[in-house]
């Protein structure tokens, strides 16, 4: 058994930022990471576009990770356990398995930064055969960028999430033919700059309201039947076509890795609910990063991780004092909001949320129980693919709140 002030599960961008802040705040901290390295998925994201918000400079994934690793290496009070798996969470303690054996780590506070897993062919009930040649985008990304191998030569990407778009470009640059990116929705779920720079630049067709109807092939993928779907995702059989390919890459969404957590989950984020200190319903257990909700940019993941690290270390010191608690509820076109509850008191809260549909020329408005606006922020335009952030001063919080969009 080993004792720490703060235990951080996950050594990706959220966990690294949390651990860094916690140890800088004087707490004896440990990161438990299942990979043999820190950095998480950043290590396989060799493209650029990371760090503009956090560092004011643009990096690739491995460079961004290295920035943090270098800071972590200089930090006292911070233990790193790699190749170590958490098998059970008990309050703020965790059971681990590693090459040193099975052990228990006891913490005063715990930060959950386990990230996400990718939705699979099974999750989306992909029809047809189940041959080799069907990969999740992250699996294919690791195969190409870390192992230096290729999944196949003729590729169809299902889903227009950012990893899928990035992989379309990556595979093209590695010599594969990306035949199409298919998206079941009428709009893409990825960032617009990725559509332009990953698909348009390489003349890769984007097929909207299109899905795979059937996977063909026995031992290995040999092709697909695909076609159009209507607004309710019903297939339109008359549009069915066949396309030859040897590889299907799925970029169909992420699910937070909540398996070890025994807490009620939010219907939209499919993760735990938190207050404005990023603390879950279990005292001393904090959550951040893509584990808490799927972010658009890694910079935002790190910022949230840092906040969770500060709060967890304050909690471990017994210094986290909270005011009166109120609810914060999303309304209308807002699909979810983090945090789920807020406290009155001092300081400022970072509120993160997503919208269901494109909006323009509107105000984000926070209303109190009696319908009074306590805060508003103008938004020229926003897309579902982009996470939204507003700030709220705690001294304005005096009742349960609602967050909504008011079109101007």
């Amino acid at each position, binding site marked *: 058994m080993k004792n720490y002030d703060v235990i951080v599960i996950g050594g990706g961008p959220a966990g690294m930022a949390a651990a860094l802040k916690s140890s800088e705040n004087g707490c004896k901290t440990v990161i438990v990471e299942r990979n043999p390295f820190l950095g998480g998925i950043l290590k396989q994201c060799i493209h650029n576009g990371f760090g503009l918000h956090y560092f004011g400079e643009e990096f690739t994934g491995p460079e961004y990770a290295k920035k943090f690793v270098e800071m972590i290496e200089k930090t006292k009070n911070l233990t790193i356990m790699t190749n170590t798996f958490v098998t059970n969470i008990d309050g703020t303690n965790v059971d681990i398995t590693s090459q040193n054996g099975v052990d228990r780590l006891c913490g005063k506070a715990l930060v959950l930064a386990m990230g996400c897993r990718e939705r699979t062919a099974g999750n989306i009930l992909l029809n047809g055969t189940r041959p080799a040649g069907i990969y999740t985008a992250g*699996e294919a990304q690791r195969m190409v960028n870390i*192992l230096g191998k290729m999944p196949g030569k003729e590729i169809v990407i299902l889903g227009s999430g950012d990893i899928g778009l990035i992989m379309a470009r990556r595979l093209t640059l*590695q010599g594969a033919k990306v035949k199409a990116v298919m998206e079941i929705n009428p709009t893409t779920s990825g960032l617009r700059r990725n559509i332009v720079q990953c698909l348009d630049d390489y003349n890769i067709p984007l097929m909207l309201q299109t899905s795979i*109807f059937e996977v063909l092939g026995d031992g290995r993928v040999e092709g697909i039947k695909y076609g159009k779907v209507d607004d309710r995702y019903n297939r339109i059989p008359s549009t069915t076509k066949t396309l030859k390919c040897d590889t299907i890459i799925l970029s169909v969404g992420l699910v937070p890795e909540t398996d070890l957590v025994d807490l009620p989950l939010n219907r939209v984020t499919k993760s735990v609910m938190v207050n404005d200190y990023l603390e879950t319903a279990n005292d001393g257990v904090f959550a951040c990063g893509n584990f808490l909700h799927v972010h658009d940019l890694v910079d935002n993941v790190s910022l949230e991780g840092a906040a969770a690290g500060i709060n967890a270390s304050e909690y471990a010191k017994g210094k986290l004092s909270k005011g009166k608690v109120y609810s914060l509820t999303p309304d209308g076109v807002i699909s979810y909001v983090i945090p789920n509850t807020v406290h009155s008191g001092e300081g400022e809260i970072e509120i993160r949320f997503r919208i269901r549909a494109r909006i323009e020329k509107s105000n984000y408005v926070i209303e109190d129980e009696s319908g009074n606006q306590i805060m508003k922020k103008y938004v020229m335009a926003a897309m579902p693919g982009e996470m939204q952030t507003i700030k709220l001063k705690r001294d304005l919080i005096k009742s349960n709140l609602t967050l909504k969009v008011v079109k101007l």
Partner: protein
Amino acid sequence: MNRISKDAVIIGAGVVGVSIFNDLTRSGYDVAIIEKELDVSTGTTKANSGLIHAGFDCKPNTLKAKLNVEGNAMYPEICARLGVELKRLGAYVVGNDEEAVNNLMEKGKANGVKGMKKLSNSALHKLLPNLTPEMTTGLFAENAYIIDPYFYTICLAEEGVINGGEIYFDYHIKSIKQTANGYVISNGKEEIITPIIFNAAGAGYNDVAKLLKSELYNVVHRRGEYYVLDHSEKDVVKSTIFPLPTKAGKGVLVTPTVNGNILVGPTSYESDDTTVTTAEGLADIATKVKKMVDNVNLGKTIRVFAGVRSIVGEDFVIEPSQKCKGVINIAGICSPGLSSAPAISQMAIGLSGLKYDPTIRCNKIAPYTNLSKMSVAEKNALIRRDKDYGLIVCKCEGITLGEIKDAINRPIRPRTMDGIKRRVRAGMGRCQGGFCNDKVAMIISQENNIPLNSVVKEKSNGYYMLSRSGVNEKL
């Protein structure tokens, strides 16, 4: 050409073929299985409900009725010998047709099924609180089990191998020639000479019969689709729940699996020998299961699959060929084929004239390493001995490097990623191998000393990754 002589050859490494293989090797015979795929249990045996039925719904006085009840009684002993988990959860049949329930009770009695009980509406809903109100009548049979059908078959095959049997994988029969004292089977590279052939090729029965010029049967394929649900759902049912059977089969059931998942299915569509899943089939299951139990959340699906069962008329076909002396035809082994397999084997061996005497070779397989069944002290002792048992490769199922290496270094060395999955469940969990497929492929490559880009998922053309320049190496 390489020539080998055997006392008997079994064509097909499904549960029936492997059962015969196991019984004959233990009886001291020198036998071989020839299998076109790269592992045992890759056809019908890997894709079914994983149930050992009690035997009450078979038509009385059929082979199905007789062999199911006999096979059912044999399972506990075989599983204990092999160290394979067999769970006696019992099975419910529920519906709203009292007469149909009475009919099943009668059939069960006629078939000699013990431990059956008719349940009143109130008793039924007390025992199964999640049943829909439309389910007003039913029965419970205590002698129904759940089993991991492929793991069982693998262990049975391993025992056959350590008792002297041989399995030829990736063996594609080119010709079978009848000679004065038997048959010469050839794939163009290796000839196997044998006086006795068991045609246990399952869905491929007629393909083999054509080569043998033995009896062809009117084989109909029926495809069954299934949902597999996440471990989070493991408590939604505690026993297997069937609807009242229809002409098409046992209907859409819900059952726990020995590995803590929930299985929902199957459909039953007449089809080619294909294992596709369809939108219609999956929707059909969803509709049917909702009518029976109200708490099954198909949103927690981690995998969908389909299996094919071969049907010849109403009963199993297990008979000596009239055209080819020494050939035993085994066809139409649909449900309850898994339940009947041990008894089918003994019947087929009897028909062949060979003698079943399992006292000749009694080597037992070593149990699989399974850390999930160990105490902390046992785990630590193992990790101290070999740190590979402390490195988890498949995080969803908690499978360590040590367990995967052990599974490869067994009497039958699995060469495929699915082979690893069926032995130790790496890649069988909620992420479906998204995080560990590449690591499993690397371990197979290292342990077998083969290039990474020659590792296949299941079939010989099912390569998992290409080299950077887009090449795969076929072994």
